[in-house]
């Protein structure tokens, strides 16, 4: 479960950043597939668009990593504030009838968690290269939060009956 943050090196922070963006990318691709399988093409396309954005974030992190050796961190030893990589939408939070508004709300939550993660690192590390990197990453996440907020403001809110399925999965009778 969640742990206190104690990141001690630039390489360790970059390992977290790489895992965070990579897992977010993978999750968006998985969610897009789920929505395609369940005939929700509009949200599937939105998740694919988010995946394309995340792919750019992964590339940016990899540029930062360059030829540095990153430590191997087992999945359960990353110091996320929750159960999963901060920027990944939880699999259980989606619904087959969800709307773009729901999807963007979840994406906004993910970006805010990512911001919160780096903010915690900034609070806890000593001045130096590590703090500078954490600040830069935090500011990037702040920009991502603002972008998603602006996007979300343009998307209509879901109707009250958004989850009503005219042909629902019924209990057997």
């Amino acid at each position, binding site marked *: *479960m969640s742990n206190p943050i104690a990141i001690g090196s630039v390489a360790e922070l970059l390992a977290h950043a790489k895992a965070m963006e990579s897992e977010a990318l993978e999750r968006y691709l998985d969610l897009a597939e789920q929505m395609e399988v369940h005939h929700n093409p509009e949200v599937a396309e939105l998740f694919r668009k988010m995946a394309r954005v995340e792919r750019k974030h992964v590339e940016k992190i990899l540029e930062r990593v360059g030829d540095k050796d990153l430590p191997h961190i087992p999945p359960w030893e*990353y110091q996320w504030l929750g*159960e999963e990589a901060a920027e990944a939408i939880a*699999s*259980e939070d*989606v619904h087959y009838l969800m709307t773009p508004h729901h999807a963007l709300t979840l994406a906004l939550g993910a970006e805010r968690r990512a911001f919160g993660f780096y903010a915690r690192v900034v609070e806890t590390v000593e001045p130096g290269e590590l703090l500078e990197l954490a600040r830069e990453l935090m500011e990037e996440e702040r920009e991502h939060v603002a972008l998603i907020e602006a996007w979300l403001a343009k998307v209509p809110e879901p109707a009250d009956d958004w989850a009503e399925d005219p042909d629902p*999965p019924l209990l057997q009778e």
Partner: protein
Amino acid sequence: MTSSPAPIPGLTARDYKSEVKPVWCPGCGDFSVLSAITKALAELKLPPEKVSVISGIGCSSRMPAYLNSYGFHGVHGRAVALATGLKLSRPDLTVLVTGGDGDGFSIGGNHFLHACRRNVDMTYIVMDNQVYGMTKGQPSPTTAPDWDSALSPGGTGLRPFHPLVIALASGANFIARGFSGDPNGTARLIVDAIRTPGFSFVEVLSPCVTFREDQRGWKKIVRPAPVDPTEDIGRAARRLMTDDGFNLGILYTGKRKPYQLRLDAVEEEPAALETQFVV
């Protein structure tokens, strides 16, 4: 494991996923269990061709199709029996069994008991959602007695099966409980289960968001078990007496030697046995 294949460096969790798109309902806990399994296999750096995933029937039994390893989608309730045969004949493979509570504890219940007793080296991951999801919501052996539904008005009134109690009493060598909402923690349990020789049993609470919408609330109820794993069966049993089904972590790790086929005890080739039968 009885034998360890040479690990492959550089494999990621994604490399263990197949190209088949899962058909589980969005929100289903099984997606996170799939993620946990792939993370565990990547962490162990197991070559995909040295891993075999066996299943029976049910939503969670679709797992082998979604993994880039060998697999066998068997018949209802018989996954553990299939896996036992496979592991005994191919001890070099890492054998996982995946399935649900209906498959594993109802029609497969007898196989579960004897798999624990035999202690063949494999890891059995049961995604427990306390319902038959694939067949549209019938109560399963782990369903609470008062779960009210169109198929069981007022509830079944039946005492639920307690998988960890049965596993402990029957001789499983590793017993743990995870939660799909914590895929990284579940990956760790699966890694430990695979590393522990003998029959390892991991129950994963995995909500069915279609027929058990109430299970979305599990993430607020589960908590790490307040005690460390024990090697003492009596202590593990006492802990289970007060277990409400939501304590997560490793309950018990034993040191019982895994069952292995005694090839030296086979004196005759199978072909020689044919002479005893009229064909």
